[in-house]
């Protein structure tokens, strides 16, 4: 059973190893290996207070476990899904064991196994006994994370299609964005504090070590102290947990697929035909608002920027810095642009109704209004609440000058990018339950993140001038100018989107119908075979593009801008900032070169994208 399943999984992986996916796999593997190496390094490091090491290691193992919990939500469903095999006459426990065996085959498991070697090196520092004990315990820990990930995914699948599930997904997704972008703040905080000398508080230690992912460390420590009772009890507990998880999983496998959580509409009465929401424009706005309210994918789209913004500004509180707090509102308005940049693709081929009714203009404008109605309240509330909370009153004019232009500019940019940069994804009526399984808009989001900063620039420049020349009226002129900029950008970019949609609507519809390689293969069987050359070029291109976005972001921000700021501000934190490991004299050029390289890679990614569009046989000319 396991043998067949493993061969099957390998074939699927091999067939899926194309273009962007392969690039992301490679990037993932490299980062995984780095993280594994860092874990082993941590287990060998000499700290002033050795007992802290166990806590730190337990914390890192906790992060590995967290990664296994979140990973499947990020990466979509498992390669081999249990429901593929429900019709096979095989007992479910045997199927569970077989699938578990197959689950161990994969880059992620290999990388994790490498990282868990840290437990053995950690044990080796305490003697031969703990080292020997650590070998089976590390293996057990690996089984635990794999099983836990499977069970949580299976259970999560039940709720994912509901709005609550979509919101949870959004929160997790945003949390991951915060950690990957701003996680270095925590490292900085730990390094700045005196935790490394004094150790964590007793409560923290006990809490941390009671989590099952830490039980390996607990066992090895106990063995080091000669407390063999605990040294055996901890792994035994882990083994029992594994058995329980396997049991839950096999029961879950046997369950017939549950009916999806259905979201109900309102009954009996027709939607209002008059008043503010009357007429064609009102029809689109209320259609859009209902979609924002009822579609789990939209729920995720709305939740991600909110949590992302809050997480980013709240994280520095871990080392008592309030500097970021006032920017919650502007951050939310900016992140919303990157999140909602593919609206037309989210509704898929439903575009045919806009085309057959010839309502392109009201459709674009309606979507812009709905976007504003969804994101303005949280952005305004967050702005007021967080500026007030931070007590940094000097930020009022800045925030007031940023938010309206960001919102208005956003309403323009999302309309523009949803039409001009549309990325086809799973069609609206075939969309699977996982709200993260959608069109990949990494490229668009990256560009929009930076372009989105432009609309508030004039207003912010006024505030800056006002502050420099000490002219309060100029400082406060920022807000009305910001409103004007926002309206203008929304109007102009929306107009361009309308023109494009009116002219090329059928082509966009065609892209959405067939733009996905899988569907194209089914629909026009021979096309793909004959176009193999062209498609290959496009795939290679998207691999390059994916790598360029990933590396470009790393070089630009954490290896470029941040160390440069640190050097110039004379903050001495090394962390993983390369430029901080040399003398400032050399550090500055390294950071600058890094920024330039990052920008160059961004440019390259954009060029590849443009190139692909021109070459792609599936893209209408």
């Amino acid at each position, binding site marked *: 059973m396991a043998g067949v399943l493993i061969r099957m999984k390998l074939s699927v992986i091999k067939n899926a190893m194309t273009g962007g996916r392969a690039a992301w796999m490679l990037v993932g593997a490299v980062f995984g290996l780095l993280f594994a190496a860092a874990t082993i390094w941590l287990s060998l490091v000499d700290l002033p207070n050795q007992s802290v090491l166990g806590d730190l290691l337990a914390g890192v193992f906790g992060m590995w476990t967290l990664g296994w919990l979140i990973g499947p939500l990020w990466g979509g469903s498992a390669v081999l899904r249990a429901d593929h095999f429900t019709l096979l006459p095989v007992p479910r426990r045997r199927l569970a064991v077989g699938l578990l065996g197959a689950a161990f085959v994969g880059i992620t498991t290999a990388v994790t196994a490498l990282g868990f070697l840290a437990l053995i090196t950690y044990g080796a520092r305490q003697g031969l006994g703990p080292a020997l004990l650590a070998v089976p315990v590390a293996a057990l820990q690996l089984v635990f994370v794999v099983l836990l990930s499977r069970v949580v995914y299976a259970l999560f699948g039940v709720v994912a299609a509901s709005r609550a599930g979509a919101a949870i997904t959004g929160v997790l997704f945003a949390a991951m964005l915060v950690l990957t972008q701003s996680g270095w703040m925590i490292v900085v905080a730990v390094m700045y504090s005196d935790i490394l000398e004094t150790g964590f508080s007793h409560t923290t230690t006990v809490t941390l070590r009671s989590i099952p992912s830490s039980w390996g460390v607990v066992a090895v420590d106990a063995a080091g102290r000669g407390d063999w009772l605990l040294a055996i009890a901890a792994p035994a507990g882990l083994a029992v947990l594994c058995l329980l998880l396997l049991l839950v999983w096999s029961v879950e496998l046997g369950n017939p697929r549950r009916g*999806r959580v*259905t*979201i*109900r*509409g*309102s*009954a*009996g009465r*027709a*939607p209002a*035909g*008059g008043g503010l929401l*009357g*007429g*064609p424009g*009102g*029809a*689109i706005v*209320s*259609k859009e608002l*209902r*979609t924002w*309210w*009822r*579609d789990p994918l939209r729920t995720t789209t709305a939740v991600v920027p909110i949590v992302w913004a809050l997480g980013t500004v709240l994280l520095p509180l871990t080392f008592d810095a309030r500097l970021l707090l006032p920017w919650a509102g502007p951050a939310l308005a900016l992140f919303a642009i990157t999140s909602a940049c593919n609206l037309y693709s989210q*509704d*898929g*081929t*439903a575009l*045919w*109704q806009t*085309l*057959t*009714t*010839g*309502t392109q203009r*009201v459709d674009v404008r309606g979507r812009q209004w709905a976007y504003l109605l969804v994101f303005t309240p949280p952005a305004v509330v967050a702005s007021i609440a967080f500026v007030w909370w931070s007590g940094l009153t000097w930020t009022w004019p800045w925030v007031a000058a940023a938010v309206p232009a960001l919102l208005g500019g956003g309403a323009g940019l999302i309309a523009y990018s949803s039409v001009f940069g549309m990325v086809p994804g799973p*069609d*609206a*009526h075939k969309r699977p339950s996982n709200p993260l399984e959608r069109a990949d808009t990494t490229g668009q989001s990256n560009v929009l993140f930076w372009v989105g900063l432009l609309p508030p620039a004039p207003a912010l420049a006024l505030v800056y001038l006002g502050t420099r020349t000490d002219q309060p009226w100029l400082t406060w002129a920022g807000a009305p100018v910001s409103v004007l900029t926002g309206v203008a950008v929304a109007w102009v970019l929306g107009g361009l989107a309308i023109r494009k949609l009116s002219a090329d609507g*059928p*082509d966009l*519809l*065609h892209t959405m*119908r*067939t733009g996905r390689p899988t569907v194209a293969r089914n629909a*026009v*069987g*021979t*096309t793909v075979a*004959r*176009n193999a050359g*062209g498609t290959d070029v496009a795939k290679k291109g998207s691999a390059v593009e994916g790598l360029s976005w990933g590396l470009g972001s790393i070089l630009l921000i954490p290896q470029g801008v941040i160390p440069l700021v640190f050097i110039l501000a004379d903050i001495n934190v090394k962390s993983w900032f390369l430029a901080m490991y040399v003398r400032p004299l050399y550090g500055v050029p390294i950071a600058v070169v890094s920024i330039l390289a990052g920008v160059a890679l961004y440019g390259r990614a954009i060029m590849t994208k443009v190139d692909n569009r021109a070459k792609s*046989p599936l893209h*209408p000319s």
Partner: protein
Amino acid sequence: MEPSTTQYAAAKSAEVDGGRPAALRLSGLHKEFGANTAVDHVDLVVPRGSFFGLVGPNGAGKTTSLSMAVGLLRPDEGTSQVFGVDVWSDPVAAKTLMGVLPDGLSMPERLTGRELLTYLGQLRGIEAGVLAGRVQELLDVMELRSAERTLVVDYSTGMRKKIGLATALLHGPRLLVLDEPFEAVDPVSAAALKAILIGFVASGGSVVLSSHVMPLVEQLCDTVAVMAAGKVVAAGPLAEVRGDTSLEQTFVRLVGGDEHTRKGLSWLAS
């Protein structure tokens, strides 16, 4: 090519209509996807007041032709005219004349049937009082009343067809273009749909539908066209296209079914 070709149908329709433009006229429609020619210079004339059936095997180009005919897919070459109005140069006028049911496309999925119809009616500028009555009547006829609170995304395949047909009928079009309208629709609903369509034709409307269910086309349509590999291989009044045999036999003869398909599986033969 069969003796009864498009030219025949064209001549016939001109004669019958006394020079008035046909309900739908496709001239030289052509579409390639990469190196694959999906639709190869198709000419078709749908006479006014006809119930027109477009049949062909999977991948014959039916959906592509109909998409180009109604303005949902840009043709590489050729034109499409609805009652003499060019779909691509005067889309607004053409689109008020026809109702369209595409196959397998999404709709605004997170609306209930009533909301969907109401919004579409508002978008088409139908007056509120008229609209409410029409929506109610459509929901009744399509038997969608019991699913009042169900969102379109949760509709069954048959219900999707019915709500799609309702959106096509809402504004009172003179031509209906329906892609596989009866696929996955249960017999009871199908009977209701047929009654609607037959009534529509009887009152002077024109219907084009595509299907690969031959008995259905024979039962409903008075004019048919057979497509295979992107070309129209036969077209004309039903009686002339099928001759003395059934439409199914004519179809298999024209399209050339494979010998293997009739053999069956070796290990299942007893």
